[in-house]
């Protein structure tokens, strides 16, 4: 599910955040839960998160987009397939 621009009164913008993270080479769907951004990366992207610079960059981007926390959810096979098949970013709110 791709969504409309998700800016809100808190200044959070999920669409823009997912796009910015994709520019780091991390392709993922993104679910918003208040100040928590839940990222569901495609399996090939998970290993890239072991790089501390990549983690720092994602956290900085999340802060810039109004989020206080970032959670990484490991996709099950089914969810991973969904994410690969869709045009990232996939937004679930």
């Amino acid at each position: 599910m791709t969504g409309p621009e998700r800016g809100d009164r808190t200044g959070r913008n999920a669409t823009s955040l997912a796009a910015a993270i994709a520019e780091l080479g991390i392709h993922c769907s993104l679910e918003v839960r208040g100040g928590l951004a839940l990222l569901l990366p495609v399996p090939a992207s998970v290993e890239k998160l072991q790089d501390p610079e990549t983690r720092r960059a994602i956290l900085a981007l999340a802060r810039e987009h109004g989020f206080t926390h970032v959670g990484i959810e490991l996709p099950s096979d089914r969810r991973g397939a969904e994410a690969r098949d869709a045009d990232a970013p996939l937004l679930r709110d």
Partner: protein
Amino acid sequence: MNSLRRIMDIHAVEPSDSVLDRLRERLAAWLCAHAPVAVGYSGGVDSAYLAVAARSTLGPDGVLAIIGRSPSYPAVQWETAREVARRFDVRVLELDTEEVDDPRYAANPSNRCYFCKSELWGKLVPVARAHGFANVIDGTNADDLTDWRPGAQAAHEHGVASPLAQLGFTKLHIREASRLLGLPTWQQPSSPCLSSRLPYGVAVTRERLRQVERAESALRALGIAGDLRVRYHEEVARVELGAAELPRWLDPVRFTALRDAVVGTGFERVALDLRGFRSGSLNVLHGVST
């Protein structure tokens, strides 16, 4: 000592011997001036140090450690508390607290800790006095004064003193002083109550507390050491790991093991927090602190 150095690398600079010596002398003087004392005792880093320091300073009859057993603490906490007391010859009394049955607490407002500590001190202080201990103290430290701690108001209302905070003991001072006393708790991670894993406004129930306890226990069984929190977001468990642990659990194989361990405890989904452990994480999420 290497472990302490790692803790210090993360948190602060090492306390100098002279500062620590001075703090310990001031604590001994404070305890002598207020003896005998009853300690609100959880077996955590702070109250364990305070109880053993009081035992060392005042002798076996000068201190009574009182455990307020709460459903919001994991069972393993009480085992640690009893073991430390036994090893250091500290007299212990145990009583049960029922804050989870108080609807003001169970509603999980941002001042939830006030109702918990009101229940604790409301039971503990009269029991201490009935045993001849007019002065009741707790392990609040100087670092705690900088965080959102509504429970401190309840302690104040019941006349509970916090000598470690009053004298300027930080967590780091307490860890080092504990190490010098031979306390096994010196490198134990901080252990706030399980209710702190539930976002404000999400009702605190015994089942949710046990769910979080099971999840954290399952992760410990995987070999995860140091700081660890499982934050409750309904069907999602958000796992916060210490800085030293986080990178290796982002390995896809280990990540899968972690997820499977937590899913087996009742959560449907598992997320690793990308920043890792931070004290008061849900306070930040809800804008109570930064």
